[in-house]
């Protein structure tokens, strides 16, 4: 598929490995005024790392390594990116939930429909933070919501909005992508499965 530009957009990705299996979760960000510069990419990546240190790190297992936080300028193909190497693990000890058992953070915009909702899957969770095999504990739900909202707030303070980037309409690519600001995050109590195929599987 041809590259689809995001007007003033940046993709912020957290790149993890749990017991050697690679997974990532990405947020869409937009600079409030004008296209992003290199300093913007660095700031967005720094905000990502700060949110990891303050919240998310304390809810993932020590098997789960955050390798890097990557901010990519999405305004043009071949535009720069900024990578913050982190190489830190989560702090929890104990049995981890299987890697395909995820919490989902759903980003809601002012519009309805799948194109206008964001989905972020978080794995590397501790099994004892579930109340039973399908239900997340309420403390875990609260903390994931706090992680997403804290990141949103930090980005907002530096002049960036969290958005949902819609790249398709009725199955056909739309270029440029339509970006809509996230107004609320919803964390659901049921565990979900990552739909993206894990690296190195199914080959």
């Amino acid at each position, binding site marked *: 598929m041809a590259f689809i530009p995001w007007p003033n957009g940046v993709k912020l990705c957290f790149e993890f490995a749990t017991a050697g299996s690679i997974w990532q979760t990405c947020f869409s960000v937009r600079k409030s005024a004008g296209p992003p510069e290199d300093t913007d990419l660095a700031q967005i990546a720094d905000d990502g790392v700060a949110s990891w240190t303050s919240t998310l790190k304390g809810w993932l297992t020590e098997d789960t390594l955050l390798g890097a936080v990557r901010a990519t300028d999405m305004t043009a193909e071949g535009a720069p990116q900024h990578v913050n190497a982190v190489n830190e693990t989560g702090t929890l000890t104990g049995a981890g939930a299987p890697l395909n058992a995820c919490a989902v953070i759903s980003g*809601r915009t002012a519009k309805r429909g799948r194109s206008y909702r964001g989905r972020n899957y978080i794995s590397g969770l501790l099994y004892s933070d579930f109340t039973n095999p399908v239900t997340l*504990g*309420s*403390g875990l739900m609260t903390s994931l*919501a706090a992680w997403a909202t*804290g990141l949103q*707030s930090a980005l907002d303070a530096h002049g960036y909005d969290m958005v949902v980037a819609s790249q398709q309409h009725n199955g056909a690519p739309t270029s440029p992508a339509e970006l809509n600001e996230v107004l609320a*995050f919803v964390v*659901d*109590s049921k565990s979900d499965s990552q739909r993206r195929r894990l690296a190195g599987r199914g080959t």
Partner: protein
Amino acid sequence: MAAFQMPLFDMTGWPDRAVDALRSQDLSGAIDAFMAEQRVPPQMLLDAWAARQTAASKTGHTYKAMMHLGRVRLIAEAPKKP
């Protein structure tokens, strides 16, 4: 920022673990006790849980909790921009 005040609950018929959790003001633990037994937590308990998150929010987000298709949903809404 609004201070959080613990409401009074009628705990008739609640799971023992939920009652114990609430005695130590652990709203999360009380909700988990209902969910562990596949029971729907009372809306008043969900409201109090969400109100506590709102009161503790350092980012100005407001929290709501609701049941939807047998799931608890925690909704964090961003503060309105001027």
